[in-house]
């Protein structure tokens, strides 16, 4: 709207006709809201308009936040993908509120799915909002030889329709025009009549429509009776019929194309071909996440950057000014123990220059491991073994972050290609047996990366009941990647039988747990009803940006809980509680689990970080069956402190504590039974 020349003119005239100017051209900023179904490319428009990227989501249920920006003097808002305005789920409620307050709505629709997308368009028009329609994927129309008469569509809707191709930014030059040309569209007479019975001075047309459609929250706001489900259905059916009529008029199809990808989509749905496809995906994922990221990259980032560089420097810096004992242990190239020397600095390292020199030379040798034991409790809490600053920073940035990025990257690839909804569909029946629908595959898959991350993702599930079941499964049986690495290392070389024993015990627990929960928990789970987007090549830039924003979002949301968890464990350690726990568990460990006393240590450490627990077992002389029993116990054992805290936050105190204590019982019960049989 404000072209450069306009600005110049305005500036020149500013002083002279300033009062007049405000009369002619009020500088009121409008609230522009982008609305559309999932997968219509809404976020591409938003990114262009704002110059900044936001999460583009392909799977219904992943973009929850609203993002705001500025475009040509107006405020622009992005909304989650919705199929209609209402309050069926959290995303819809969020989107509904922002739509109700909008001045102008830019409705993005997918040209290939007119009949689905126009339902929302008509609803927005029925709300009496000023609307412009952006018809996206126009390029696909040409490829598939489909014609849409945009002029006729515009006439029928009563609003402007702009052809666009968001990926190539075609038609984006018209966005400013689209905002300005937005107007109130044509409404069906019957509905118009109905609406006028509700509309008053205080109740707007958009509120009235939602009230008629049975939105209780809006009805309560105005203190009027809310429409019945029957009324909503009548309106919905009327709207649906109008959509079908419009599509019949404006769309012509010349031939059927794009069948190759459709075919691929079908193959990934049918178990006969879909399971092999899934296996190939899993193998590729294993090489990428399991081997490359969690082994090679994390080994480097966690040990070299985190421990040897960051922690070493922070701790020795702190050690200069506070009493500390330092153990330097030397190992040879094969990682076998050579020697150990203890340095004592009762008044800090810098107080004793000769010893400091010897210490720094020794600790810089190859294969040297340095352990700092601070005397001051407060220092210990911040910089000690479980130090809030040292351990947590290393853990978050150099172990968790690479893994979280890798997992979100793979998820983004699967999502952008349209594979994820098909995987959910293929697995739906198996999930039904445990009271879930196919969508539950997403948090469970993420759980193999990080349970904390998965706990947050349970939000996308339809009912509280499903959230509870998945949360319990995650805490009980799903080993996170940090833990998987250690388990794999312990099991490798142990042979076939221990591996089968491990897998079958864990699977049995999964089946028993989920069946019991399915029977016990009241209510019904939501059925699968999933829109399957087209299969397509993932767009790499999209995938990268999505990965970045999700990883950033997760770290932002979860980091604080890792710090709080570390603080709690630090306090337990300093107060001696950790030691008490180990002593309490020790007799239990030796008699019931038939493991050495030190294994109790590993279990308590498992509360801090799950892989700590498993890693502790490395240094013990265990028989193969003892190893198997201990990893079964550790897998079933309580989640790490961060996922415990996040679980409490997501699921509430009562449920969270029940699950947490449940894992104690399950771990020792099942581990013990197996021990009694095989050892």
């Amino acid at each position, binding site marked *: 709207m404000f072209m450069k020349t306009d600005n110049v003119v305005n500036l020149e005239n500013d002083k002279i006709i300033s009062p007049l100017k405000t009369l002619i051209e009020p500088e009121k900023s409008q609230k522009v809201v982008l609305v559309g179904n999932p997968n219509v490319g809404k976020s591409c428009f938003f990114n262009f308009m704002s110059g900044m990227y936001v999460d583009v989501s392909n799977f219904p249920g992943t973009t929850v936040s609203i993002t705001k920006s500025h475009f040509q003097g107006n405020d622009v808002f992005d909304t989650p993908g919705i*199929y*209609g305005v*209402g309050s*069926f789920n959290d995303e819809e409620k969020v989107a509904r509120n922002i739509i109700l307050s909008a001045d102008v709505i830019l409705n993005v629709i997918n040209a*290939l*799915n*007119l*009949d*689905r997308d126009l*339902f*929302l368009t008509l609803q927005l028009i029925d709300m009496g909002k000023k609307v412009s329609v952006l018809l996206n994927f126009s390029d696909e129309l040409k490829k598939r030889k489909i014609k849409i008469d945009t002029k006729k569509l515009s006439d029928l809707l009563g609003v402007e329709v702009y052809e666009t191709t968001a990926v190539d930014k075609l038609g984006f030059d018209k966005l400013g025009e689209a905002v300005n040309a937005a107007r109130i569209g044509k409404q069906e007479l019957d509905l118009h009549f109905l609406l006028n019975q509700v509309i008053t001075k205080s109740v707007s047309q958009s509120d009235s429509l939602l009230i008629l459609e049975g939105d209780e929250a809006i009805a309560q706001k105005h203190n009027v009776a809310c429409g019945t*489900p029957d009324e*909503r*259905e009548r309106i*919905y*059916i009327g709207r*649906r*019929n109008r959509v*079908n009529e419009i*599509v019949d008029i404006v769309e012509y199809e010349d031939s059927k194309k794009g069948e190759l990808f459709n075919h691929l*989509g*079908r193959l990934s*749905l*049918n*178990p006969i071909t879909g399971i092999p496809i899934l296996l190939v995906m899993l193998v590729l994922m294993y090489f990428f996440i399991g081997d490359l990221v969690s082994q090679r990259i994390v080994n480097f980032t966690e040990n070299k950057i985190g421990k040897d560089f960051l922690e070493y420097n922070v701790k020795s810096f702190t050690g200069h000014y506070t009493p500390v004992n330092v153990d330097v242990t030397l190992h040879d190239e094969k990682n076998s123990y050579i020697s150990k020397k203890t340095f004592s600095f009762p008044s800090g390292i810098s107080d004793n220059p000769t010893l400091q020199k010897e210490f720094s030379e020794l600790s810089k040798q190859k294969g040297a491991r340095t352990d700092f034991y601070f005397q001051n409790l407060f220092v210990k809490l911040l910089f000690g073994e479980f130090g809030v600053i040292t351990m947590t920073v290393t853990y978050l940035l150099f172990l968790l972050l690479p893994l979280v990025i890798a997992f979100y990257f793979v998820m983004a690839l699967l999502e952008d290609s349209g594979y994820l*909804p*098909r995987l*959910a*569909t*293929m697995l*739906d*029946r*198996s999930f*039904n047996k445990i009271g879930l*629908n*196919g969508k539950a595959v997403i948090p469970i898959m993420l759980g193999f990366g990080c349970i904390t991350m998965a706990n947050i993702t349970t939000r996308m599930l339809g009912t509280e009941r499903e959230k509870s079941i998945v949360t319990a499964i995650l805490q009980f049986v799903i080993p996170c990647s940090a833990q998987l690495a250690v388990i794999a290392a312990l099991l490798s070389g142990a042979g076939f039988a221990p591996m089968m024993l491990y897998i079958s015990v864990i699977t049995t627990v999964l089946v028993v747990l989920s069946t019991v929960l399915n029977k016990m928990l009241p209510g019904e789970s939501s*059925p*699968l*009803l*999933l*829109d*399957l987007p087209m299969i397509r090549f993932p767009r790499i830039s999209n995938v990268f940006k999505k990965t970045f924003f999700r990883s950033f979002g997760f770290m932002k949301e979860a980091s604080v809980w890792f710090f709080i968890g570390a603080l709690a464990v630090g306090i337990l350690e300093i107060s001696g509680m950790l030691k008490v726990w180990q002593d309490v568990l020790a007799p239990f460990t030796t008699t019931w689990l038939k493991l050495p006393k030190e294994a109790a240590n590993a279990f308590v450490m498992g509360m801090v970080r799950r892989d700590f627990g498993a890693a502790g077992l490395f240094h013990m002389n265990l028989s193969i069956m003892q190893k198997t029993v201990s990893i079964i116990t550790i897998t079933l054992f309580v989640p790490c402190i961060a996922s415990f805290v996040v679980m409490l936050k997501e699921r509430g105190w009562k449920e969270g504590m029940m699950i947490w204590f449940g894992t104690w019982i399950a771990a020792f019960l099942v581990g013990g039974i197996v021990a009694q049989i095989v050892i």
Partner: protein
Amino acid sequence: MPNSTLDKAKRGNPITVVKLPSGNIKSQLIRLGISEGDRLKCVQRLPGGTIVVQKNRQEIAVGFDLAKKIHVIIQ
């Protein structure tokens, strides 16, 4: 086959929707493009009974338990 339900549909069957289950789920179905009187095609029936229907170019997966509640005519 008149008086049937969607879970009985086989791959390739053209289908006419007769009656949807009531409640929220009905509104969700209508929004996605499945309403009473609509003509769909069953493009896949997975073992266990998850149904994938197609309407124009759009594919929608319907869980078995929901499919049982959707009354259809299967041609």
